[in-house]
């Protein structure tokens, strides 16, 4: 698992550098790396849930702090992957109002993620 994470980390960093050199200018939104990074995080979250399902758990689901944290990450990155993909396009072509609306949606999703992470920390405390 740690090899997979290292591999994702290294190849993603490489991709991000290549992206701003060859594909997207540093002065525009980096929509390609953000989408790829959201995909990688979603995949890792799903692997986590798969492993959790396969393992033998004696305590209820909600008592595991990592369940809450991973759910938060999955909700945020899963829901905003479309937003990330169209980020540059929106910035360049959509009206300011549309950008504000998506900014609000994004902020709401971030809030939900942090709420889940907070609940996770709360369970990790005990």
């Amino acid at each position, binding site marked *: 698992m740690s090899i997979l994470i290292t591999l994702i980390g290294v190849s993603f960093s490489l991709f991000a550098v290549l992206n701003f050199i060859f594909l997207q200018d540093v002065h525009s939104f980096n929509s390609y790396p953000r989408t790829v990074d959201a995909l990688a995080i979603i995949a890792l979250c799903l692997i986590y*849930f798969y492993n*959790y*399902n396969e393992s033998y*758990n*004696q305590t*209820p*689901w*909600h008592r595991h702090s990592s369940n809450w944290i991973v*759910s938060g990450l*999955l*909700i945020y990155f*899963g*829901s*905003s*992957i*479309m*937003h990330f993909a*169209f980020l540059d*396009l*929106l910035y360049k*072509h*959509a*009206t300011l109002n*549309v950008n504000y*609306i*998506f900014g609000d*949606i994004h902020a709401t*999703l971030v809030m939900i993620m942090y709420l889940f992470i907070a609940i996770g920390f709360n369970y990790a405390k005990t």
Partner: protein
Amino acid sequence: MPKPNDSLLFLLSLSIGSVFMLIISFILIFVRNQNRLLKKHAELQETKLSHQQELLRTVIVSQEEERSRIGQDLHDDVGTALSNLRLTIELFNQSPATGFDKFSAGCKLIIDKIITDVRHISHNLSPPGIAQYGFAGALEELCELMSQTGAIGITINNNSPYTTDGLVTVNAISLYRVIEELINNTIKHAQATEIMISFAEYENCVEVLYTDNGIGMATAMNPAKGMGVHNIESRLKVINATVLQPLLAHEGYSFRFSLSK
């Protein structure tokens, strides 16, 4: 490229909303499923625990029953015979005129009875044939003994060299007791005339099938398991045997278990 307008806003919010709902439903279903699994597991644990307690109770109760039976046997047979002997000696001392020969014959008779009683009790405690002839020999002896009255015929179909030679004594005694209990149950409840016991050997287990042509379990007993059945189960558990599904097509009683080698 056309300038994106409010339709992009609509499509993008739609996709964000649907992915959000999908993820929320995924998490909810996952949590529900996990909790259900946990609940089922807890139930299974509880059933296992109560079954184990029931088996333990049966072991204790049957041990006590066995003790009281031995006590009763000793008291009723050996105790009575010894009192009888004492009385005979007392009578002889009071009036030696009755003749020594008669006294000696009477005493010998009583002592022989005591010896027979003690032998019976000790044979009941541990089956005598197992040490001498092995499990198969002891079982044949038991079946001959049980079918002596002529009311019931017992056929043994032993195709397993393992049960004939390979069983260690502890397992042999348990297996012997299980079959003894099954035969006892048939005689007591089943109104059967034929019993068939067969042993089939496989690569790593021996399958034992016990059948009779009686009225079957459903009509003979209430669904609650009797003490005998619990006894059988705990004995089989001790020798690492697994109870198998009984024969469904068979009309009388059938009991199947597999003994791992």
